[in-house]
């Protein structure tokens, strides 16, 4: 047996997963409260003891970890035009596993600077202008940031002509220069910036997040949790040498405060009569809906979907829904625990969280008539031909009607313009191992992929 330990320091729970590389199998999982305020290793020790009860004493060959503790990787980004370089900066940050706490376009103002100082980001991403294009904006923003006392690393990934000048202006700050996130109009180049963000997270932020106490235990790689999930999903979709992937997929992680959606697909137009508008999106794309979550952001679901739909799906009266939503908002750790009313409400909320978040993630298709006849205008990714949907998140993996909840990620005639999968197999992450498998993927992709295929529970084809 060759056991490996994978740790996910979450904002609430520290989750541990033990796998055996020889048997390519899950040995056990356990969780304990994250103790980032005191000493993060307390919670880890507690979790390890629980894991040992299940697996027996194990001599781990290697230990890898990811973290979203202490607020996760919090980033602010600024670009020039909202739909262009600001959007590119957003895609780059989210894809690196960050949480965006501020996104600016055009010139930063003094008010913006105050907000930035208050928000205390872990990293600032400064972009703007295509290569050889606009320099004024990024230079202005560099000067504005330079007036702040150095408090966070700044990644400069804008117009290459202005990069050195930005570096000079920001002397005294920790500055990292990366290739432009949008070197030419409509061309995205976000990978170099993303690996720089992960590197900074590893070298610097780990300490600030109280994780340094445990780094001795680890064999390497420590990444933001969403970044680990992204890698797991990429592996599951594409496969690796010796093991086939399951193909293009959409994954939804419904949490208490946010809902993350991942898509692994090109999603470009399939028909000749379709015109693509907006920035082309990356094959592996992540979005985060900060207003959609089962407890802290429960109001956001009701606001996005509307009270009548929550009432209709849950079978509860609108007044009752209102009352229960208020109760859950105040008692964020309350689970249904056999309470029929709450189970029905959670079913409706989870379904609508999936529906809203996937609809925002997926692209749209608009039908127009021109003098040349019918034409379609697509913006964002076309996911209609994606045939696999993966669901995870506490509220989903323990739910009874999880396949029905996941079905809400599918195309619906009520929103015909939304390019969601027409039909798909549903995979449920019952053992909550996606982040752990993303960590393992870097070293043992074949094993990670085989364990995922074994552990993810398949829930048949849904239309």
């Amino acid at each position: 047996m060759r056991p490996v330990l994978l740790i996910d320091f979450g904002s609430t729970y520290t989750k541990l997963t033990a796998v055996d590389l020889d048997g390519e199998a899950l040995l056990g999982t356990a969780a304990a409260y994250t103790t980032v305020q005191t000493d993060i290793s307390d919670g880890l020790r507690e979790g390890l003891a629980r894991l040992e009860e299940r697996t027996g004493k194990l001599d781990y060959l290697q230990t890898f970890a990811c973290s979203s503790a202490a607020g996760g990787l919090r980033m602010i980004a600024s670009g020039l035009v909202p739909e262009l370089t600001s959007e590119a900066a957003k895609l780059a940050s989210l894809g690196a596993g960050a949480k965006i706490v501020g996104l600016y376009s055009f010139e930063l103002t003094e008010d913006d600077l105050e907000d930035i100082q208050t928000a205390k980001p872990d990293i600032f991403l400064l972009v703007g202008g295509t290569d050889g294009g606009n320099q004024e904006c990024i230079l202005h923003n560099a000067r504005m940031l330079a007036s702040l006392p150095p408090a966070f690393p700044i990644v400069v990934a804008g117009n290459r002509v202005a990069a050195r000048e930005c570096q000079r202006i920001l002397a005294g700050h920790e500055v990292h220069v990366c290739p432009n996130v949008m070197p030419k109009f409509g061309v995205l180049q976000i990978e170099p910036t993303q690996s720089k963000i992960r590197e900074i997270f590893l070298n610097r932020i780990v300490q600030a997040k109280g994780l340094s106490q445990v780094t001795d235990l680890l064999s390497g790689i420590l990444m933001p949790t969403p970044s680990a999930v992204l890698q797991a999903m990429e592996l599951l979709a594409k496969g690796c040498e010796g093991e086939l992937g399951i193909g293009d997929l959409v994954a939804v992680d419904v949490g208490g405060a946010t809902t993350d959606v991942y898509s692994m697909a090109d999603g470009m137009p399939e028909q000749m009569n379709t015109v693509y508008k907006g920035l082309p999106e990356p094959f592996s794309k992540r979005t985060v809906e900060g207003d959609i979550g089962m407890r802290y952001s429960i109001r956001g679901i009701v606001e996005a979907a509307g009270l009548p739909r929550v009432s209709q799906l849950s079978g509860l009266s609108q007044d009752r829904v209102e009352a229960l939503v208020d109760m859950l908002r105040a008692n964020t750790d309350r689970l249904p625990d056999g309470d029929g009313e709450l189970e029905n409400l959670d079913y409706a909320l989870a379904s609508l969280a999936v529906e809203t978040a996937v609809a925002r993630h997926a692209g749209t298709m608009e039908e127009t008539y021109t003098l040349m006849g019918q034409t379609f205008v697509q913006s964002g990714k076309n996911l209609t031909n994606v045939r696999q949907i993966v669901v995870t998140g506490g509220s989903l993996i323990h739910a009874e009607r999880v396949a029905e909840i996941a079905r809400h990620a599918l195309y619906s005639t009520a929103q015909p313009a939304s390019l969601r999968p027409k039909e798909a197999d549903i995979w449920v992450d019952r053992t909550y191992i996606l982040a752990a498998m993303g960590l393992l993927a870097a070293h043992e992709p074949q094993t990670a992929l085989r364990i995922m295929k074994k552990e993810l529970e398949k829930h048949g084809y849904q239309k």
Partner: protein
Amino acid sequence: MEIGKKKVLVIGVIGADVHAVGNKILYHAFTEAGFDVVNLGVMVSQEEYIAAAIESNADAIVVSSLYGQGELDCRGMREKCDEAGLKGIPLLVGGNIVIGKQTFEDVEKRFKEMGFDRAFPPNTPPETTIEALRELLGMDGEGA
């Protein structure tokens, strides 16, 4: 401005117009003539031209319209450019920009009133537009 830096053009076909061939020809002709061309393709809105021109610090915007609705599509574009900080950026338009029985002099006059620097009638060879661009951008005698 750096010496020898190429002039940047933003081009595209405006409105609900899907005529793609002329757009490709212009792209190649302008590139060949030494311009750095940002091609937005077909069905381009005024906002898209402007956003692309801001990011790429464009020197001029060249609008094509081939389906006769150009006048409607181009209305207000100069004002939007002013609003977006692209004050004075040369705007050029060409193609089959209007339909109906009217002299091109009248059409040109109306487009100039709308703030376009140049308007070109149907069947204008790319060379004419390139010449006009060189004049507008003060590139006389330059190799580009």
